[in-house]
């Protein structure tokens, strides 16, 4: 491993002049009680390698933020965690990815069942063209989680409540999900994701299409959800990462550079590239 560099302050050259990728991420990429564990993960799109030898644990009930400049591979890695990349032609994932110690890329692992355990919320709210009720009830129906209508009602109510949307929509559950505001739609998508009781929720820039108030509500929600779920969030907003996450992982051109307590990353990052990115010195 390359040594942790002198703090940026002490060097007389720009971070990019002698930027070096560490062989392994600096900081604390591993966790004892991990929900998800990634070892030597490489991801290719055809000939192009998007992720280089990533090793990281995602701890149980933690919120981990993945940050980095565009094209750094953070979304690619996130999508590998619930095998969303399977649907991308030419995409190959190698290495070991385990959920509670279980390899998720074996033949016997059903991707649909995996995605029920590892839910995903996307950048743009994408409710189904169905009623609010049916949006949330869709997953539980598909996975046969409720045998009676009353049970399904309960799941819908609990999920919407947890997503902080229940009081706003309880009188209009039959209206289309698309009739809601952007922020409400995103919370509906979160309700939809948690309706099937996932163990982990992946969020790919969940607030980039939302206004500050809606963003604040989603962030509040992330903090509440972290009591029951393990959450990995990709975000372009460094302030958002600083606000919601316990640990922050910094990616650079497909390499995992640093993983540390969020507080440390934003006050005294270990790696020069993290420092340069966080302080806005790339350009």
């Amino acid at each position, binding site marked *: 491993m390359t040594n942790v560099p002198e*703090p*940026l*302050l*002490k*060097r*007389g050259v*720009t*971070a990019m002049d002698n930027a070096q990728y560490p062989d392994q991420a600096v900081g604390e990429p591993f966790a004892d009680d991990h929900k998800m564990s990634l070892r030597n993960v490489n991801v290719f799109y055809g000939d192009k390698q998007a992720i280089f030898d990533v090793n990281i644990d995602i701890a149980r009930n933690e919120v981990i933020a993945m940050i980095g400049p565009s094209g750094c591979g953070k979304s690619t890695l996130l999508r590998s965690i619930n095998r969303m990349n399977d649907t991308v032609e030419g995409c190959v994932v190698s290495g070991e990815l385990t959920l509670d110690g279980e390899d998720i890329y074996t033949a016997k692992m059903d991707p649909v069942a995996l995605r029920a355990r590892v839910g995903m919320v996307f950048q743009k709210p994408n409710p189904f063209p169905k009623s609010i009720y049916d949006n949330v009830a869709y997953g539980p129906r598909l996975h046969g989680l409720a045998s009676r209508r009353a049970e399904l009602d309960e799941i819908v109510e609990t999920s919407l409540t947890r997503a902080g949307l229940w009081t706003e929509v309880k009188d209009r559950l039959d209206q289309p999900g698309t009739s809601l505001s952007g922020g409400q739609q995103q919370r509906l998508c979160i309700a939809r994701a948690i309706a099937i009781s996932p163990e982990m929720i992946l969020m790919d820039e969940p607030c980039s299409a939302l206004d500050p108030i809606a963003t604040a509500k989603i962030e509040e929600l992330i903090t509440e959800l972290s009591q029951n779920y393990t959450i990995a969030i990709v975000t372009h907003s*460094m*302030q958002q990462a*600083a606000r919601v996450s316990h640990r922050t992982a910094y990616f650079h051109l497909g390499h995992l550079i640093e993983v540390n307590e969020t507080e440390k*990353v*934003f*006050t*005294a*990052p270990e790696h020069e590239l*993290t*420092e*340069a990115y*966080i*302080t*806005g*010195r*790339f*350009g």
Partner: protein
Amino acid sequence: MDKLQLDQHISKQFNEDLEDIKTSMLEMGGLVEKQVGDAIKALEDADSGLAERVIEVESRIDEMEMDIDETCITLIARRQPAASDLRLVVAVTKTIRDLERIGDEAQKIAKMAIKLSEEGNAPRGYMEVRHIGNCVRKMLNDSLDAFSRFDAEAAIATMKDDRQVDMDYKTALREMITYMMEDPRSISRSMNILWALKSLERVGDHAKNICEQVVYLVQGRDIRRGNHS
């Protein structure tokens, strides 16, 4: 060569803002250094005119502190600095507080100088004032120098000087007590010298605080209260 890379930001205005607070702080530091030097000189030479000037300039230092503080708060609100930028802003806000307090100590010494020039010189103690005065002026100078060069090693070396200042102060204190016992008529005047010595010792403490901020700024670790781990 700019080691903080203040000029490396994507935002030009941010670069300038950061440069500005650092420059203003060093400017304030320069003025405070002069104040301490003038106050000591006024005391030694029983120059009440110079002492008056020190007291006048003190209000200018207070203004500078408030101005820089406001600039820092605005910068935090507008830019949300992180990592080394955040540490710079935090270190500056803390350092200017120490500088302001050093300014207060200089003012106290100047007041003692006026009293002494009115009551007549104290019989003893000037040598101690000169010696400790030189030590803390050097400490203050070195600490600001370390800040401007972002030199944590120099800051740590300067911090160690404070121990010597504390020891010298205690020795001077004992000597002054002896003088006062020998000649009780000198107590009032000797006490004035003692207050001035106490102020100088405090200047050393503040210079040490500034050094701690330099280490925090450069290395990101908090070494206050002997937390060197």
